């Protein structure tokens, strides 16, 4: 599921953007080093392929509902991780711009959730070992099933974390996880079947396409352990940083996140180490330093004696409503005025 702008806080949005842009830069660099130009059109057309394939609906057996594919794993298997990641990122960009799936700020989150996990974590760590040399249909099917499900679970869990850290939604962690994970398990099952089926179909019809990818091209020979470590470090920094932002405003907020995430308070030292560092970066890079970067104003509003609450006291609020309607009227007037004068 796509993350939406309105549920994001700037801190989380910017962090995820930074992570995703770094990954795009890294993948581009890696690809540039050892790409044959033939891959460039293939990547583009493959992106369009996933797009088109997403628009074909099919009936999910047992239920009456219809589903469509997500495609991250298919791309990873066919193009290799770096090219697949760029293709996925471009698909999500087009979706954000044309279908408003997610949004521009949430794009960083979406690229992370739907691109990084399948391409850089699941593909090298799970798909490759299980699929082996790609000769056995059964192993490929199992690999595709398992990796699609895991990738989707990771993605769904990230949506939960990003929403919670942003603090715009009141959903408690447990409920949210219980809503998201099972839905995505079901989606993952269906998508796994489709992915497995398609890879095997292609393997039967034109095996050279897959072989060319997994063997002859150096960049697909596998991602080194070093890169995976880098990915994990980025992940750790991102979650740590986000958690520490959260923690700096609400000590109890950190407690529950850490408890829920790790089961114990161990991470605390780590986040405290990262927090000042990230804060420093943030202070240096924030072009509008006064921005409210705190993920949430969690102060519980208790009637009208809470001054921390901007503009919702009696009296103030009336002025707010009045001012708001005037502003809206004014903007509408501008809009209609322009329309009117243009028509003449």
């Amino acid at each position, binding site marked *: 599921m796509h993350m939406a702008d*309105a549920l994001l806080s700037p801190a989380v949005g910017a962090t995820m953007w930074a992570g995703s842009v770094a990954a795009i830069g890294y993948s581009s660099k890696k690809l540039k080093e050892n790409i044959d130009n033939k891959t460039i059109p293939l990547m583009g057309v493959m992106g369009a*392929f996933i797009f088109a394939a997403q628009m074909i609906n099919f009936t999910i057996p047992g239920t009456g509902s219809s589903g469509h594919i997500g495609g991250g794993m298919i791309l990873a298997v066919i193009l290799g991780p770096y090219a697949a990641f760029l293709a996925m990122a471009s698909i999500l960009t087009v979706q954000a711009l044309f279908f408003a799936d997610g949004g521009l700020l949430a794009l960083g989150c979406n690229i992370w959730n739907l691109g990084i996990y399948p391409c850089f974590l699941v593909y090298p760590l799970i798909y490759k070992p299980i699929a082996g040399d790609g000769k056995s249909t059964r192993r490929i099917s199992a690999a595709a099933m398992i990796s699609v499900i895991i990738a989707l679970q990771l993605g769904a869990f990230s949506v939960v974390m990003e929403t919670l850290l942003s603090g715009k939604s009141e959903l408690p962690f447990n409920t949210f996880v219980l809503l998201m994970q099972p839905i995505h398990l079901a989606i993952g099952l269906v998508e796994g*079947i489709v992915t497995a089926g398609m890879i095997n179909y292609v393997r039967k019809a034109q095996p050279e396409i897959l072989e060319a990818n997994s063997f002859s091209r150096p960049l697909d020979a596998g991602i080194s352990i070093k890169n995976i470590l880098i990915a994990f470090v980025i992940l750790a920094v991102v979650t740590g940083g986000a958690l520490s932002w959260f923690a700096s405003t609400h000590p109890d907020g950190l407690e529950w996140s850490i408890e829920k995430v790790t089961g114990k308070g161990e991470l605390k030292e780590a986040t405290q180490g990262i927090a000042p560092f990230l804060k420093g970066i943030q202070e240096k890079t924030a072009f509008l330093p006064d*921005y409210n970067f705190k993920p949430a104003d969690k102060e519980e509003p208790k009637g009208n004696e809470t001054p921390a609450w901007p503009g919702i006291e009696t009296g103030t609020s009336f002025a*707010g409503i009045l001012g708001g309607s005037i502003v809206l009227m004014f903007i509408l007037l501008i809009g209609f005025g322009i329309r009117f004068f243009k028509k003449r």
Partner: protein
Amino acid sequence: MTFDEKYYNIGFLDQLSYKNTIVHRLDPRAKVIITLLFLFTVISFPKYEIVALLPFFLYPVLLMTLGEIPFMFIFKKVVFVSPFAVFIGIFNPLLDSGQVSIFHGFMISAGWFSFFSILIKFTLTVSTALLLIATTSFPNVCHALRQLGLPSLFVSQLLFLYRYIFVLMEETMRIVRARNMRSYEKRGHGIRVFVRIIGILFLRTVERAERIYFAMLSRGFQGDMPTLKRFHFSRGDLGFAVFFIVFLFIFRFYPATEILGRFVQGVFS
């Protein structure tokens, strides 16, 4: 949305972006930067804020009216993608039950404020992103991104993707039509047929990629997609950028709406 609708939707958005109005003529870089700043500003408001968000409707309204973009088109798209935000946000009034009074003695659950705040932010961000494309065209946004420093490989990827979406959609539409004509009721709509369909689609795609590659080679492709169009940052672009930066700044840091409200209230009482 059915397949055809989705297809024509993206096609229509593309058509809109080739109009020639004041907004369309602005430098794509200016529009991209201001739009990102705008989104960032809107999102940065605390979660109970409603009133201070309202002035920000000016930006999408200006883009829409000056750019001659039909309101209903944007509106429908915004409504169509709203379920996720609504679904997550609707829990706020239930879970955040602190009572707040707005008028004298009229109480309301605090969660409604954050819910409406989410809805307003959602409308603002989604419509602005759509309007950016509708007034700039996707290829221009891509070139702007490249000039702003995104890797050229990624930008060519975006351009390729965009170019071939239309071609592949035609192809897919033919396949889907063929499936629908041969299937009665639900037969033939299952997973097995679907897998074969996308298998075929994939093979055709790869063949197409090969043809494209040869065609590009014969036209001198060397791994980059240059553009003939040269953008230059004119005085108008600068004016547009400065105006909206000041606008965003003022309405982010000063409760202008509320001050206006108090003023009017004072006049009439």
